[in-house]
């Protein structure tokens, strides 16, 4: 966990309202698991940082994908190669990595990016990886080609404009040993209900500090306790937290 100014090496549009930013890092920032995130400073008058999943990384770069959902992320689109961005990270706990399994990755919308780093890591430990990625429509589809290098990819669009038509839950298949999911709460609920095998899900909550100090991002756990998404998550075993 570091606080650092990093230089933007690329900031490109991936799909409708969706951008991929790559920044130069150094060895001091050691990412442990896919599914961890960074807390990114945006321009004033936006005051809070924005939590964004690490999509992929190398020894000296880090890439994240952001949807320009509101005005804060929009200011990130102004950054050009050579500009600086301030990051806090890597934060939280990511996806634990299995070996020799048939793994199913499920990503919905901006839940897709962490699946890229995850697929890459999984492919190193002799897993058989499938991925089902859901988008609203063709214009929003991204990372199909990038994930295909490591997984057997199915694209699903809600309006059927590309790939399969409908919701990801209709195209999950039956033979996974374990699943990993990131996406809207509705999707996570449906997926955990549909799939009986063990699984991990990545949660979103609005955050203040992103390090466990402000209790902004608390969720109830199924055993009646509570966790902070930023520090105890964002990835949890599928039956750990009460999905809202």
């Amino acid at each position, binding site marked *: *966990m570091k*606080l650092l100014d990093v230089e933007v090496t690329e900031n490109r549009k991936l799909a409708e309202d969706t951008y991929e930013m790559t920044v130069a890092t150094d060895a001091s920032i050691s990412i442990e698991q896919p599914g961890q995130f960074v807390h990114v*400073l945006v321009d*004033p*008058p*936006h*005051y*809070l*940082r924005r939590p964004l999943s690490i999509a992929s990384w190398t020894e000296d770069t880090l890439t994240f994908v952001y949807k320009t959902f509101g005005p*804060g992320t929009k200011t990130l689109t102004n950054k050009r190669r050579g500009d600086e961005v301030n990051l*806090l990270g890597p934060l939280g706990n990511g996806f634990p990595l299995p070996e020799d399994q048939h793994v199913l990755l499920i990503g919905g919308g901006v839940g897709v990016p962490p699946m890229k780093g995850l697929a890459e890591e999984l492919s190193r430990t002799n897993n058989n990886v499938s991925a089902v990625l859901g988008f609203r429509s063709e214009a929003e589809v991204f990372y199909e080609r990038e994930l295909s290098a490591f997984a057997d990819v199915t694209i699903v669009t809600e309006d059927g404009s590309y790939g399969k038509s409908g919701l990801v839950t209709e195209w999950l298949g039956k033979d996974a040993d374990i699943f990993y999911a990131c996406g809207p709460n509705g999707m996570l609920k449906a997926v955990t209900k549909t799939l009986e095998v063990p699984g991990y899900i990545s949660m979103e*909550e*609005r*955050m*203040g*500090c*992103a*390090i*466990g*100090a*402000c*209790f*902004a*991002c*608390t*969720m*109830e756990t199924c055993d009646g306790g*509570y966790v902070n998404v930023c*520090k105890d998550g964002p990835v949890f075993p599928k039956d750990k937290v009460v999905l*809202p």
Partner: protein
Amino acid sequence: MNLTRDLPGLKLKNPVMPASGCFSFGKEYAAFYNLDQLGAIVLKAATGGSRFGNKTPRVAETSSGMLNAIGLQNPGVDAIIENELPFLEGFQTPKIANIAGSTVEEYEEVAEKISSHVSAIELNISCPNVKEGGIQFGTDPSLAAEVVKAVKHKSRVPVYVKLSPNTSDIKGMAVACEQAGADGLSMINTLTGMQIMKDKRKPLLANKTGGLSGPAIKPVAIRMIYEVYPHVSIPIIGMGGIESAEDVLEFLLAGAQATAVGTANFRNPLVMPEIIENLPDVLERYGFSSVQEAIGGAHDETNVSPLYSP
């Protein structure tokens, strides 16, 4: 440069401490720096029993600030003493426990239990995010006086009262607390605010309203401290939007003896050590040779009577 302040119960090596609730019980920021650099450590509010707090979303962003409605989530005073305070024993800097409750009895219980483990108590009568207690005590001078008296009676250490800015008469509140025996004041807590989601047509925060903090409220904090300072002879710990050593100086000039940093920690987890590092230079640049010298400096000295000057 002498940065020290000697306040009731608190020998501060510098006038910079975290604002309660923005620093949990210290562990997270200890990963970034040695907490002994801080003037003091201020803990998240403790209540009698454990509280889950409000539903999420609990925070919203606003122009130059944020709203929060955490709702006093905490494991309860006993669990705090057992599980959280031991970690802090390794640090020499003074600890301040922020305490809250729904009833006078709950305040008394928490004060009694926690006061033997800390250097001072910050009595939170101003949390806007809980249904009972909290804010009512914070906007009615006689209720405030009652809870201050009760807590003073139970506490082994000096008691600072944290005032709410949601009042038309901050001076009246401050004077009532001093008369009831408060050893100091903390000013200000958050201004009650709201943000509405245009798509969902309802307030963003699950609690509907939340407390506004950050630079947006700094002018209100400065005004209230400036207003109260000439009328009390107990020290004021100032807070509300502090982001820099310059801001700290502005609070000192208004009349604060020490300052606390809340929301700015979320933007920059290193903000407090950075402020402490910059403070001597900033004081010097503006012609001061100690923190003490700056306190109340914006007041016309001839109008100021019973100043706190230890």
